[in-house]
């Protein structure tokens, strides 16, 4: 956001931060989260350095190929292939948190711009944009995941990898740029109606608008083209094939699939917020001083709607992690031998009556993290909403 915002908002953010620190549950959540992130980041290295275990290393002695209860060597026990469960839980945490964070960022980028545009423009465009959300919402996302995994994860992987940037670009184009273009077009019409702007001014504005659209479209497709045809394309393929050889390819598709779904609710939340903000005095003032539509949306409305967005984002992470867990439960999740908390819990719960540690440790770790995220989210909501100052 613009610099002016930070200057203006300093006290607000400082205030919120102070209030957050007063909320003990939120602080507890924050501490747990930070510890969890540190553990997950450096934990696997420490275990490897101490005992030589990695998440996927199996003992070479075939007598050890079974699930042992927790011991000093294996604080969380082992799974049926004799792999150290602590190492797997930590490595699984990397994937689970990564899925949570990356998918949430995807949902933030798409959801906020989409919701803000729909909310500000209102009327027919808003109606249309929200119906599009409804439609995507109604498509079974399991089917979407199956198709994504099979089309990209199947036989054609290598060929289709190069498509990925273009597909991403097309989706961005469809859901963000088209409404943007419509909005700018409306601006042209408005300026025509204003009359006193003068015909010359209108021409300049129109030219500027068309150029802006062209530049944006060009940029998106240009990036796609570069990634696709140029050296960058090979570089991308290289990144992708290394990740395939590490067995992580499905993860990328999961980010994509889950991100594609989770922005819908975000868009709704943002739209609702913008709807209630757009008729307030500060927006009218901005409009009166001649700030452009885009400027109003991204400089004035979005920052003011940021509170609920941040809160919602912290709540999206847990729900995304649960979605991943659900997909793992259906067998569509992360690629073996890697695991996520969800897949570990889903695997473990089948043997709950016999190897309870296989469920308890990943389950508790996951629950603790989700717990903390929810606390932080709640704390943030209370902190950012000035009305709850009494809290």
């Amino acid at each position, binding site marked *: 956001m613009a610099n002016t915002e930070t200057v203006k908002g300093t006290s607000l953010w400082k205030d919120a931060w102070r209030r957050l620190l007063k909320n003990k549950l939120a602080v507890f959540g924050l501490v747990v989260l930070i510890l969890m992130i540190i553990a997950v980041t450096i934990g696997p290295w420490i275990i490897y350095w101490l005992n030589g275990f990695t998440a*996927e290393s*199996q003992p070479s002695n*075939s007598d050890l190929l079974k699930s042992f209860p927790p011991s000093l060597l294996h604080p969380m026990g082992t799974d049926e292939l004799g792999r150290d469960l602590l190492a797997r839980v930590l490595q699984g945490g990397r994937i689970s948190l990564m899925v949570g964070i990356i998918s949430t960022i995807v949902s933030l980028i798409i959801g906020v711009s989409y919701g803000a545009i729909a909310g500000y423009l209102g009327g027919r465009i808003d109606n249309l944009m929200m119906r599009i959300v409804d439609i995507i919402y109604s498509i079974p996302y399991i089917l979407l995941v199956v198709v994504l995994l099979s089309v990209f*994860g199947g036989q054609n992987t290598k060929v289709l990898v190069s498509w990925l940037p273009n597909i991403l670009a097309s989706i961005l184009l469809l859901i963000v740029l088209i409404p943007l273009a419509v909005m700018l077009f409306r601006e042209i019409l408005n300026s025509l109606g204003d009359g006193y702007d003068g015909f010359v001014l209108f021409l300049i504005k129109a030219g500027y608008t068309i150029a802006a659209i062209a530049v944006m479209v060009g940029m998106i497709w240009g990036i796609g083209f570069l990634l696709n045809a140029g050296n960058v394309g090979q570089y991308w393929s290289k990144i992708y094939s290394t990740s395939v050889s*590490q067995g992580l*390819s499905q993860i990328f598709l999961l980010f994509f699939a889950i991100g594609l779904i989770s922005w819908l609710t975000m868009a709704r939340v943002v739209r609702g917020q913008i709807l209630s903000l757009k008729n307030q005095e500060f927006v009218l003032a901005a409009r009166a001083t001649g700030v452009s539509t885009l400027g109003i949306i991204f400089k004035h409305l979005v920052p003011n709607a940021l509170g609920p967005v941040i809160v919602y984002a912290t709540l999206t992470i847990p729900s995304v992690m649960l979605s991943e867990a659900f997909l793992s439960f259906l067998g569509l999740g992360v690629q073996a031998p890697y695991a996520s908390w969800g897949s570990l819990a889903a695997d473990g719960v*089948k043997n*709950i009556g016999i190897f*309870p540690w296989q469920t*308890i440790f990943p389950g508790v770790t996951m629950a603790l993290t989700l717990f903390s995220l929810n606390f932080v989210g709640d704390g943030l909501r209370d902190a950012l909403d000035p009305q709850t100052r009494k809290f």
Partner: protein
Amino acid sequence: MTRISFIQFRSILAIVVLSSFLISCSTQATSKYFGQTAVPSDNIMRYTTGSEPESLDPQFVTGQPEARIMMSLYDGLVEYHPKTMEPMPAIAESWEINEDGTEYIFHLRNTAKFSNGAPVTAKDFVYSFRRALSPELASRNANLAYYIKYSEAYNSDKSFVKNPDGTFLHKADLEDKKDAPAQQIATVAPHTTVGTDTEFHKYLDEPERLSVPSDVKERTKILEKDAKLKAAIEGKELVAVKAEDIGVEAIDDYTFRIKLYQPAPFFLGLLAHQFFRVLHQGTIEKFGKEWTKAANIVTSGAFKVKTYRPYDVLEVTKDSNYWDAANVKLDGIEFYPLDEQTTMLNLYKAGRLDATYNHTIPAPWNETVRQYKDEYSLHPEVAVEYYSLSVKKPPMDNINVRKALALAIDRDALAKFRKTIKPLVDFTPEGIFPKYEEARKKVYTEELAKIGSSMDEWKARKFDAEKARKLMTEAGFPIQQTGSGYSCPTFPVDVVNLTYNTAESNQKVAEFVQSQWKQNLGITVPLKNMEFKTFLPFRSAVEYTGAVRNGWVGDYMDPFTFLNLFYSPQNDGATGWWDPKYDKMLDDANKETDEMKRFEILARAEFYVMQQQIVIPLGTAGTSWVKKPYIKGMYPNPGTLHPWKFVYIERDQNKWNVSMDDIMATEDPTVEAQIKALTATQEAAQKAKMTQTQPATPDKTKTAKAE
């Protein structure tokens, strides 16, 4: 701060309570039986067959879950023996097979009835076979019957070619003169007939007619490739192959004949399959698509449909019209469609399920459940697990690479870890076909001596890491020792994958194999799991590079069902490999009428294909299912297909304890008497016929022994 400790206290408390519960339920394995064990008050068995049955039409359904249900609802010419799965008499009291094994005649018992009381006659079988093969039904099992003369032509909508003089063009007419004599012997040759010779039989006994697709587009496609064929059929009339043309015939009400176009020694065993069981013509014609509705359905088996609530329960009840109703001991069976192994085991443990089907015990549970000797069964199955290799693509096109990868997997460790499979280095399962294994041992010893090897060396293929590394290095991928492990930097791990369809057991095996290759060869082959339906075309079209999970369950009790997997260019081995020499060996074997000689030829074929190492055998599957101790007459047979009329509930607790390990050898007087009664009528009929027709000379007709 107090609040935080409060929460911590709560969660710690919750965990402690939870784990104490869990530990208590995991360590309570002190009782004699697994979970709740109480005889159900009614005489009804509760069983699960896996997923929801696709249909109640036995000719449409294909899966194992359905097969078990169909066995309760429909009866066929023959039935599986409860222990060995060899064919034994059912509606057919007895049967005869002609000398070259292409004609079967069945003598039906005149007491057999449908569930509506109508008698079962040979005409019903003719109708059932014709319906099964009709293109309109489009059954996925149709190819099981392709051994029947003209059945493939009918099923695939083909036409005979009529010469202007009214005769039909024969297949042999188009063959080269050179091959002709051999062909003559195979198909026309002077040959014995069983049963009366009829007009229809004369038509069937003619040399095989030529058939071409009825569809113009498809025909033109074939004719364009084959100028000789085009010339031969030019301007001639095409007569569509009709249902009436296929090789099944009702000689009289209780005599049924089948004509095959080539000998298939395993065909009799195949006839117990649900696809060949008898259906009631009137009902199907009256209700059309609706005939399988519980209100309309007419069945022919020991049980009939009582209620059917899809995805919930299928209740079948004893059918008093069944010809052998006196020997049906259960009053009914409830089939529960269940998908999750854990759910099945939970229901079983809670005493709400009396038995499960094969592979239902989750691997980690095996050790616990195995303690209950009277309930848990682990016997070899007529099924193998293996990895197919993409032999046409590098690096798998190199035979040494394939051999190295196969040698680098410790099969014993795999079996130990999986707990239910037996290590396997050949392609046919171990411990299922004792006679074949005998023949195979003999052939292998000979063949191995020829190449300067021995049986011991062959057996050592279960695991030999040293040799694997040597072979891999020879193949051009040198392996270096690095610290305690190995590395193979030149092996193209970025093009190969180990692909499997999503299932926990597949995943665990793949993880194990990946780790073995990593430890023993220093090669980390990436794993890739796929949703089942995505996986199937990917595998069968050999689109993968590297290895792919595969498995096979035998359709009948003969090694041919396995070796057939690599037969013909469109074979189902999913490797891309095909060798006409191998096809010829299999053809020769089926023409051989002496059982042991035939097995020897088959063994030679197996040796031939195993030397190519186009697949990596992993293990013979094990049954791995449970039944409550009071369920009797249910045996861990190689296909887990139970003829339900032998099953009963034993209320006398003293008779419960029979260890499943030796249940096959233990004689259950009730079941033995029942089997004896069934086979006795057949043997008597057979003997009577023998003395009647040829009192002096020893009978040359092969008699089927139901053992």
